[in-house]
């Protein structure tokens, strides 16, 4: 394998990891922008998506099962997320730090529930055979570069999800309301926008995307009660880097973190890479505390 192919392979891996982060962090970022609360049980929405995929594949086996599982997981996680917003987060939304702790409690309960229902050891979602190939390049300076179909598939899913959400936010009436509440909640409410409903809808949408991400994760790893925990800390870092609730910010931040991790792992092992990532984030906020995308408004935080 050429050095150039290896390097390009790592860049591709960076994009592939970044696309996972996008899917995992998008919902967090959207509801954080809107309500300033972080849902610590967001990782458990990924887990839920994974288990829903597992159950769907029991009913719809075969090559297209995974395509059925994605909408199922989206809707299922969205409903659970909506309930969570209604039952816990909305009640506490004036106290962001307490919301954080309460949702951590929710995540413990959900993990234990999954353990009791499906067993601690986890379940298996087998990738369909049409994803079991690689795109290989055999000649030229990139010879030896192998791009697994699964990872290409993930990139495509992330791109489609991003595109749909962008269209939803920019082209629809719901999106208009979301942007209105995002910019100036009291005024939007005064203009007759039901801010309460918008919160609920966006939160459910965000958790739905997390459920979808859970299906994707199931293609790469096991579905266990704690699967969400391994993705949640990087997702939080994406939110910190991304800036308030911005789609573009979340995407760029995911790419920064994905590429940073993939490229630094050429030189150091994964454990050290994790530490360096935190150092990078701390340094980053020295330069841009407001995240990659700043919306300069008059509504500075009181």
């Amino acid at each position: 394998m050429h050095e150039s192919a290896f390097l390009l392979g790592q860049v591709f891996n960076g994009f592939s990891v970044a696309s996972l982060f996008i899917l995992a962090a998008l919902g967090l970022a959207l509801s954080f922008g809107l309500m300033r609360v972080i849902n610590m049980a967001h990782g458990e929405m990924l887990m839920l998506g994974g288990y829903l995929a597992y159950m769907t594949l029991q009913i719809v086996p075969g090559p297209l099962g995974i395509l059925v599982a994605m909408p199922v997981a989206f809707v299922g996680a969205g409903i659970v997320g909506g309930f969570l917003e209604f039952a816990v987060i909305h009640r506490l939304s004036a106290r962001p730090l307490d919301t954080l702790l309460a949702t951590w409690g929710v995540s413990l309960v959900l993990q234990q529930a999954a353990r009791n229902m499906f067993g601690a050891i986890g379940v298996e979602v087998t990738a369909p055979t049409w994803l079991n190939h690689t795109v290989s390049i055999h000649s030229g300076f990139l010879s030896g570069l192998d791009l697994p179909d699964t990872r290409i598939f993930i990139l495509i899913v992330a791109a489609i999800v991003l595109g749909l959400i962008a269209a939803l936010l920019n082209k629809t009436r719901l999106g208009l309301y979301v942007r209105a509440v995002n910019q100036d909640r009291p005024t939007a409410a005064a203009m007759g926008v039901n801010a309460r409903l918008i919160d609920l809808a966006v939160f459910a949408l965000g958790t739905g995307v997390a459920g979808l991400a859970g299906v994707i994760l199931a293609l790469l790893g096991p579905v266990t009660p704690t699967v969400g925990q391994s993705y949640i800390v990087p997702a939080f870092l994406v939110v910190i880097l991304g800036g308030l609730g911005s789609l573009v910010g979340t995407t760029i931040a995911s790419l920064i973190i994905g590429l940073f991790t993939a490229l630094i792992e050429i030189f150091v092992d994964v454990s050290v890479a994790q530490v360096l990532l935190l150092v990078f984030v701390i340094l980053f906020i020295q330069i841009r505390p407001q995240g990659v995308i700043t919306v300069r408004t008059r509504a500075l935080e009181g």
Partner: protein
Amino acid sequence: MTFQKKYIFAAAAILFGALAPFIINPYELSLLGRFLALSILAMGIMLTWGEAGILSLGQGVFFGLGGYALAMHLKLEGLNLANGDMPDFMVWSGVSALPGFWYPFANPYFSLACVVIVPGAFAAAFSWLVFRRRVGGVYFALITQALALAFSTLLISQQAYTGGFNGLTDYSTMFGIDITTEYAARYIYWITFLFVVAVYFFLRWLLASRYGVMLRATRDGENRVRFLGHDPVPYKVVAFGIAGALAGIGGALFTLHAGVVSPALVGVVPSIEMVVWVAVGGRNILWGAIAGTLLVNFAKDQISSAFPSLWLYGLGALFILAVSFLPAGIAGLFRPGSGEERVMRRILSRRKLSTAE
């Protein structure tokens, strides 16, 4: 609670604490000792979270720094360094000579100083880097959580220097005295108890000082304080630094009681559990932080063996219920209708999100 009752309760608690070695059996004493060590850390959380409004999900890091600073000394005690002796785990990790940064820890006084200074200074420096850029609130909580993850990962991966996943264990003497005897255990308990009392009165004084007022002012309205001409950053950094140092002291004492310090105590999950002790006890009341720590840990000790899965549901429910319905904690129950409970409710409900309601 009336004025007199309050003092009778306080005197009884102190008396019981001081005489505990003669009242309860050695095993119960060892539990009480280690939970009291944890309560020193909890008082630090009360200072940052309750009084300064800074939620840290990474207190385990400072706890670990204190614990490891002491444990490094304990591992070196009794070794002949001039002879090329090394702690056992270094040998099987393929290290050929004791790493340089371990040497100073052979001195017990250096080690004890590090127990306080290293976590305190690191906490202060870390929080300064974040607060100076006016990053706070939820962001700070998430960054400290990432810190807890990074720190435990680093400890585990640098096995040759830290003992890795196993941590540091199997120590026997300090200052040449056998610390594993029942007799020594009593003294370690008393030292712990003294620290708890001393830290309690120190924090009482601190919170009553002008600094305490400024800290609460910063929590109430950071921008208001800034536009009154004060720089809020140092107040927050000092609070976080003190909390870090207290966590370090707690970690060192815990290490003495438990006989082991390991990454299992410093990661994401233990760090966030520490917050629930204070949430249950009362985030604005010092004795609440101590009571909450003791209550949750004794409950965990009893319940988790008999009903392990129940414990996890219970812990989750505890998080949800404590912050939703009991923002001033159990201690707040003793002051219904006045004081902290009411104040907490007020400031907590200050920021209503939806004006449409």
